[in-house]
């Protein structure tokens, strides 16, 4: 089973590197969004706390424009049957989840580097808290986005439905990660953020387990 999951991940990665279906659009999206923030706050002194929130706004909308790709492209190109006839639904789910993890980590890395370089007041004091928040936030974001992508891939209005459906599901995660990023700017210690870490880990665990149980029903029909 693990080798099949890895095979689906590699297939998606190779396909993405070859077609650049999501990558180019995603990176351009990040550049445009950060530029918009810079233009709109030009001459203003924006606090680190506010910039923490804006960081997750950029991450959320970038993720919304790219993470649905794994399922939507299969549905659009009609290759869903190829996968349905090749393996169990859970293998497809975990393969796609793994790909979305890789995509969100790459995306977050790019966003954070761009953000640190362009936002003068965004100074992280507790880098460990910031990094853990970013990683766990990314895992939670990818977990919820993957199952929602599988649901909306069969709908006609995929583009608009995706962020609209995702937002209420992701709200508890986003509130926690924004809070954690703010704490990292203020210099909070790791032990002060234990509560946040518990929420983030529980969120991802619940979403992944629920997705695993429900995916069979979503995948076929």
């Amino acid at each position, binding site marked *: 089973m693990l080798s099949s999951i890895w095979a689906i991940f590699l*297939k998606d990665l190779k396909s993405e590197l070859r077609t650049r279906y999501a990558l180019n659009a995603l990176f351009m999206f990040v550049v445009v969004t950060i530029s918009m923030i810079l233009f709109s706050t030009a001459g203003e002194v924006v606090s680190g706390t506010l910039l923490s929130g804006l960081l997750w706004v950029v991450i959320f909308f970038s993720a919304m424009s790219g993470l649905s790709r794994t399922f939507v492209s299969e549905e659009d190109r009609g*290759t869903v*049957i190829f996968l349905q*006839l*090749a393996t169990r639904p859970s293998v497809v789910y975990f393969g796609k989840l793994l790909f979305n993890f890789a995509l969100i980590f790459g995306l977050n890395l790019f966003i954070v580097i761009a953000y640190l370089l362009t936002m003068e007041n965004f100074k992280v004091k507790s880098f460990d808290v910031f990094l853990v928040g970013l990683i766990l936030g990314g895992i939670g974001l990818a977990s919820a986005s993957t199952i929602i992508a599988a649901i909306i891939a069969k709908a006609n209005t995929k583009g608009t439905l995706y962020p609209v459906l995702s937002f209420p599901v992701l709200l508890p995660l986003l509130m926690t990660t924004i809070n954690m990023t703010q704490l990292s700017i203020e210099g909070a210690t790791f032990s002060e953020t234990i509560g946040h870490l518990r929420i983030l880990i529980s969120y991802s665990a619940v979403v992944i387990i629920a997705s695993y149980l429900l995916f069979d029903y979503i995948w*076929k029909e």
Partner: protein
Amino acid sequence: MDFKITLKNVRKNFSRLLVFDSVNFELTIGSSLAIAGKNGSGKSTLVKIIAGLLSPSAGEVIYQIDGKKIDKLDWFKYIGFVAPYLQLYDEFTGYENLEILARIRGLKNYKNKIEEVLKRVNLYARRDDLVRGYSSGMKQRLKYACALLHEPIVLILDEPTSNLDAEGVEMVWKIAQEQKKKGILIVATNEAEELQMCEEVINLDELKLKSREQIVK
């Protein structure tokens, strides 16, 4: 090994539209079934139900091996499927498509097997070309290679010779004959000649007209 597919009172409707009702048959190794009917009679819907790609509205499809029921999630191990609506990854080459499939299926020593099926469908010389550059007939041949890669017990062919040239049609007939010897063959078609590939025929139009009358076996 005793392998059996049973359809019991299978019905499919999309909302109020009844596609077919009370389809009953049993297929064992060595048997072959052609599904006939006009356009829109539900041939593709029925083969999708048999392959587990769609669920019936009523009734059930049962796969059994040595008398034991096979979990629906494991049907894919026994099925080879060729259909016009089955699409391949056109950003990959023919060989890569087969390699991806072999890895996802968890096949061992698949390289020789891939070469063998590519030769069988006469695509070996074009194995390193992107599928994007394949003609529709070549894509159809590659679908056969994908379907045969794991030597399935059940081979399901929907419109088996579409887009194929005379040599391709001959290849399909040969594959069908070999499949009948070692497994189960199911063909959905509205071509009278292709019905000859199978020993038994179920006509979905007659099934509808005669209402609840079972035709096969």
